[in-house]
């Protein structure tokens, strides 16, 4: 697997990964604002957001119809749709594409759900690797607390209830998130994650992120053409 830079794309893809409640979405939003305010070509894409696929995913989740296999495949479908219709064309056009979650989310979740890792990776092998992947590493308890404080109504799949880890959604969520964290940590070296200490202040994390982006990408190359 190669990165977009290695494949000769003019654009660059930056992904953020981490547990729910790790603060990654806040960080990628601030990164997006920073890049936009510099007048750069930026595009933001979220996991599980393709319109057409979403209706099936929502139905599957609401009615608890999904098995580990269909859960995996439907997310791959969503990803493929966004990848081929949006991400690739924009990367060809020299955009900085920001992804809130990328293939590693699938690798981690599907593996925890006992899908064969080689099968999952095989399915996603049409996708190039991000040029930069930030992994927001927070203490498990901190992430859990952030989610459990703010949104006490946990959804079935989000809490990993389908794995029958515990009849209590909160306990199930804890065990599930703990296992996902293990998967992320196991991938850190292999996929060159840039690990950000997510226990720090938002501003501290953001300055590390911005510094890394500025040092690793030639940002001037992504300037939006004046109309």
């Amino acid at each position, binding site marked *: 697997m190669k990165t977009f830079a290695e494949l000769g794309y003019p654009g660059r893809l930056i992904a953020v990964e981490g547990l729910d409640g790790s603060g990654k979405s806040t960080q990628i939003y601030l990164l997006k604002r920073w890049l936009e305010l510099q007048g750069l070509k930026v595009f933001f894409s979220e996991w599980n957001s393709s319109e057409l696929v979403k209706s099936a995913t929502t139905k599957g989740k609401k009615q608890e119809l999904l098995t580990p296999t*269909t859960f995996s*495949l439907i997310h791959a*479908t969503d990803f493929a749709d966004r990848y081929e219709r949006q991400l690739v064309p924009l990367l060809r056009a020299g955009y900085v594409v920001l992804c809130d979650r990328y293939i590693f989310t699938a690798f981690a979740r599907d593996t925890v759900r006992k899908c064969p890792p080689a099968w999952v990776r095989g399915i996603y092998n*049409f996708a190039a690797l991000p040029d930069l992947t930030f992994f927001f590493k927070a203490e498990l308890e901190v992430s859990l607390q952030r989610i459990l404080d703010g949104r006490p109504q946990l959804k079935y799949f989000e809490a990993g209830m389908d794995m029958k880890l515990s009849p209590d959604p909160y306990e199930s969520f804890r065990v599930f998130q703990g296992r996902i964290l293990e998967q992320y940590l196991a991938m850190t070296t292999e996929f060159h994650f840039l690990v950000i200490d997510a226990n720090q202040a938002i501003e501290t994390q953001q300055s590390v992120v911005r510094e890394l982006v500025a040092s690793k990408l030639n940002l001037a190359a992504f300037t939006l053409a004046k109309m």
Partner: protein
Amino acid sequence: MHIKRNAKQHIRVPTYTPKRFYGHGIPGLDVNKLTGKLIVVEGADGSGRSTQISRLVEWFEGSGHATVQVGLKHSTLVSKELDKAKQGNILSHTTLSLFYATDFADQLENSIIPALRAGFMVLADRYIYTLMARDMVRGMDDAWLKNLYGMALEPDAVFYLNVSAEQLVQRNFAKNLTLDYWESGIDLGLSRDWFDCFVQYQALIARQFQRLQTIYGFTIVDGNRSLEEVNADLRCKIEQVLVEK
């Protein structure tokens, strides 16, 4: 078909043969004790697939076997969305391919496997091979498809109804008077003429089926013959499957 009403019927229990997946399989699924038989009928639209299958259902039930029919694109999970996507033709090949795979997996787990576990004869109107052939014609990678469909259960028998492109055209027109967009591969832009497209596309699909045949070893049945001849041939072949060890 006539069954002697008063004759003392001997209903044969099919020989149990262990099932296996083509590749990685489905997590959490035990393929042991799947006592039913999975029989797949493949072939283009107009190859007589559906007619043959309904005849086989009749024959199976007449012979005392509980039978269930499954087909592509019938899952509760995604079939509606798939229809919508196909109408607008807005999905890329990878997306459409994965969408179909999701639909297939949903049916495999929720219809096919439970029926096999309950000892049913499962007659599948198309299986992974059609999905693979369509994708291969559209340039999807063989290895990628093989991995993806490694989740599929190996059927007890697969019959491919081979019908010449000319016959297919005639049969399609006899039924509909219009050619189907997808069955003619219009999205591939092979020609501006839909008739040419259909003929060329079906030839491309047939070629992929020949390739798949060498890998998956299914039985090619000459579908240019009469309905009765083909059905007799199928029944004869299926009877062997039922007693096979």
